[in-house]
């Protein structure tokens, strides 16, 4: 069963425990008519790693990009495969940080850096409604994003993060393989991005650990653990399922071209008496 296999791959003991509880909650109800489909159909590179290469779209973005029928088809495929992940819980903000988030929500998103065409950070950039391409090489993984026409270079040759990091939107990524899972540690963020929906702010102290597990030829299970002791009571865990789109191609997307929201939102910001400040 793929869910259990995913649990096995999760290195964090606490999360593994949580997932096992969830799995055990689901399994008796499921009747366990499981086929235990193996991952034999997962493509592998010559060094034996699962090959993440391909063009992908997050399931959470499917409805916007491809429509409701595509989303329903994806959900049906996941049910048929027994593919399920835990729910993403609300962000576990500390009281003061939660108050700031509520103010962002009350202002209906006019502070959103993305609306100004600034780079979406990690993990948000993985869930935007435009595809991305993963290119896996022996010593690095490259992610090419259609949105923002952005890229991430993720060395997997054992090198550490550079010592001269300046805070950036996408941070600095270093990857390693834990079994069949690519684990990416991302540090060096600025505080100018939101993590998911409206108001999901963070500080420069944020560290993100992503896990990419290709559990089938068609899918990658994705987990992001966001640790930010300045704003969160505990790490925030987010999940998604990336779906292969072999007939797609990565197109150019220049967001700033004719972005009228910049003027609109600046006017709204000027008229506001309650301007939140980022961390």
């Amino acid at each position, binding site marked *: 069963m793929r869910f259990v296999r995913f649990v096995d791959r999760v290195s964090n003991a606490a999360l593994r425990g949580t997932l096992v509880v969830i799995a055990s909650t689901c399994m008796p109800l499921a009747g366990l008519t499981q086929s235990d489909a193996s991952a034999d159909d997962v493509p592998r590179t010559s060094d034996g790693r699962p090959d993440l290469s391909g063009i992908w779209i997050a399931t959470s973005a499917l409805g916007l990009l491809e429509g409701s029928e595509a989303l329903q088809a994806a959900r049906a495929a*996941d049910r048929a495969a027994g593919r*399920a992940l835990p729910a993403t819980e609300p962000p576990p903000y500390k009281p003061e940080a939660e108050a700031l988030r509520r103010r962002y929500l009350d202002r209906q998103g006019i502070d959103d850096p993305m609306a100004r065409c600034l780079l979406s950070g990690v993990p948000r950039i993985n869930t935007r409604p435009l595809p991305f391409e993963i290119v896996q090489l022996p010593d690095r993984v490259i992610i090419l994003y259609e949105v923002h026409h952005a890229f991430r270079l993720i060395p997997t040759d054992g090198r550490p993060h550079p010592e001269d990091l300046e805070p950036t939107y996408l941070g600095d990524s270093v990857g390693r393989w834990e079994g069949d899972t690519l684990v990416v540690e991302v540090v060096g963020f600025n505080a100018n991005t939101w993590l998911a929906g409206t108001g999901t702010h963070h500080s420069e102290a944020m560290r993100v650990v992503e896990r990419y597990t290709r559990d089938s030829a068609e899918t990658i299970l994705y987990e992001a653990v966001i640790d930010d002791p300045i704003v969160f009571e505990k790490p925030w865990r987010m999940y998604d399922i990336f779906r292969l789109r072999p007939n797609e191609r990565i197109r150019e*997307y220049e967001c700033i071209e*004719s972005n009228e929201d910049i003027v609109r939102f600046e006017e709204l910001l000027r008229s506001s008496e309650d301007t939140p400040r980022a961390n």
Partner: protein
Amino acid sequence: MRLDQPCLVFVAALLSAGAANAHHSFAAIFDSEKPVTLTGTVTSIEWVNPHIHFTLEVKGEDGAVAEWRFEGFPPNMLVRQGWRRGETLKPGNTVTVSGWQARKEPYLGSVRSVRLADGRELTAGPPASIGGR
């Protein structure tokens, strides 16, 4: 393993987690309580990022003509919904547009779908629930 209802809740929650991922906040500019469906003649179209814009000349019951301006998905999302630049929507076309009015500007709208003269209805923009609370 077959999933039963409680597990589906997990999946549904997962899939909704990224739901606020359109380009901008819908709610800051547009009013989901003001749906609008208008039939008129396309007078211009701007095929630009991060939103296409087009104008629609609409004749009211009193004979007065108003020019509405609608914004929708970026071109890269529209082509994946079946749109083609210079073909799908052209000046002179008579179409029916469904969407929502802006909160302040009287003739600005966010388009959700466009019904073409041949009867096809194409998705053209995000649902009203995107962004904001």
